[in-house]
């Protein structure tokens, strides 16, 4: 596993952008990594998107604010337009295909789109879309253990939503499966 993962998650407010990044950060902490989570704060706030930078590292993290990313999880078109060029060559750009009509045309990065919103509707909870994306991301970049994510969810989700923990686990698994299927096809 690589020593440093610098990830940006971006989309509309309400899509679970911040909690996606935060869940991963929690999981990183449970896995014993150095982590930082920076919510959209600074120039990125303009443009109608919410985003957060999550960094996981085996060593001390220097800047919590960065301009180039190893990976990006993109949930809407404005974020695609803004962040596609900022993924490092060889990096990963995972996007929610239902919300994005014009994906990046870059060929020097790994581009993957999954219909997480449609899948979430099938799970009868549209808010679970972000966890499907996180599952898919972890299939492509296993930076933390899935058990750590499940543990993390107990921290991120308020107590009153703990009955949804099982649904979240399902969503993570579904995300992983969607990628496996894509990889089989591809």
């Amino acid at each position, binding site marked *: 596993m690589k020593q440093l993962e610098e990830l940006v998650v971006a989309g509309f407010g309400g899509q679970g952008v911040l909690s996606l990044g935060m869940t991963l950060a929690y999981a990183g902490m449970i896995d014993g990594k150095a982590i*930082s989570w920076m*919510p959209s704060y*600074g120039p990125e*706030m303009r443009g109608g998107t919410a985003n957060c930078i999550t960094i996981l590292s085996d060593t001390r993290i*220097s*800047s919590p604010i960065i*301009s180039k990313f190893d990976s990006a999880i993109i949930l809407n078109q404005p974020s695609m337009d803004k962040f596609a060029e900022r993924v490092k060559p060889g990096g990963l750009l995972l996007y929610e295909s239902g919300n994005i009509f014009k994906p990046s045309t870059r060929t020097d990065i790994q581009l993957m789109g999954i219909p997480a919103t449609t899948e979430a509707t099938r799970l009868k909870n549209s808010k679970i879309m972000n966890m499907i994306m996180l599952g898919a991301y972890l299939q492509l970049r296993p930076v933390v253990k899935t058990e750590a994510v499940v543990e993390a969810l107990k921290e991120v989700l308020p107590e009153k939503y703990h009955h949804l923990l099982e649904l979240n686990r399902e969503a993570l698994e579904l995300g992983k499966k969607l990628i496996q299927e894509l990889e089989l096809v591809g």
Partner: protein
Amino acid sequence: MNVTKLMKGNEALAEAAIRAGCDAYFGYPITPQSEVLEYLAREMPRHNRIVLQAESEVASINMVYGAAGAGFRAMTSSSSPGFSLMQEGISYLAGAELPCLLVNVNRAGPGLGTIQPGQGDYFQATKGGGHGDYRLIVLAPASVQEMADHVFLGFDLADQYRNPVVILSDGAIGQMMEKVTFKPYQKPTVDKSWATTGKPASRKRNAISSLFIQPERMEQHNLKLTEKFNRIRESEVRFEEVNTDDADYLLVAYGLSARIAQKAMDLARAKGLRVGLLRPITLFPFPEKRLRELATQVQGMLTVELNSGQMVEDVRLAVEGRVPLARYGRMGGMIFTPEEIERQLETLFEKAYAN
């Protein structure tokens, strides 16, 4: 027993206040630090501590005065415009030598400005801020861990020197989440026999005041304060050095800027440029001596701040012209990227070696 949590900077600071035995918090909502008041409004009552949302920052700081004067550990927090409102009260606290902890989660200004992070309050924090001749001990956290650590340190220093201590943070450090470990803490026993707790027959009355109407007495008080500030300069300088051993060029930055600068340093080092970083942890007292020493070692220094150049003046005073000094900054809530700083370094190196 150590407790490790993932927390926002503002929340870590608030939790640390409870663990540091803060008796009373008074505050007023302002972005980006309202989490402190919110957290404490929720948690303080469980610990039988006082938390009060005041009618203004003016009231908050004067409540801190009352609480500190009665011998309690008291604090307030705010962000730039609100912190400006507190300056009169801070001057009174310094004049009456009351220990307390103040937090400024710096946003960009002047005026109402923006809620995005900035470091434009450096002068205000380090040169006194209010009227009269005084200094505050200024701590500049660069991580969520330090947001917590500086609360314990801040309260202890405040008590030790009977002086207000300010934690000068910024919106990014306040809003970001990182791992934070709380270690067991023992509140030191401090003599507060000067506090207004009700006068028993056995002692003279205690009066908390910064009024010295006779100039002779006022000067004596000022001399006493000056002596105290000099003792602080002597004993309380704190800083961190990274890669200074072999550095040809030195970055000087505090708080969030130091974190970004460190990444820039890594980028520069990857290109073979020997760059080091000095991060002042105390902005008053300022690490003058160490900077003066490093001035004889490096080819040049670059300060990076989220302002138009404030700390650079203290660096200039410290190095006394021994070394070329450049500054780089972004303002108005805009934040430099590590690459931006790295480009500055490259330009400076080119110049240095062209001569």
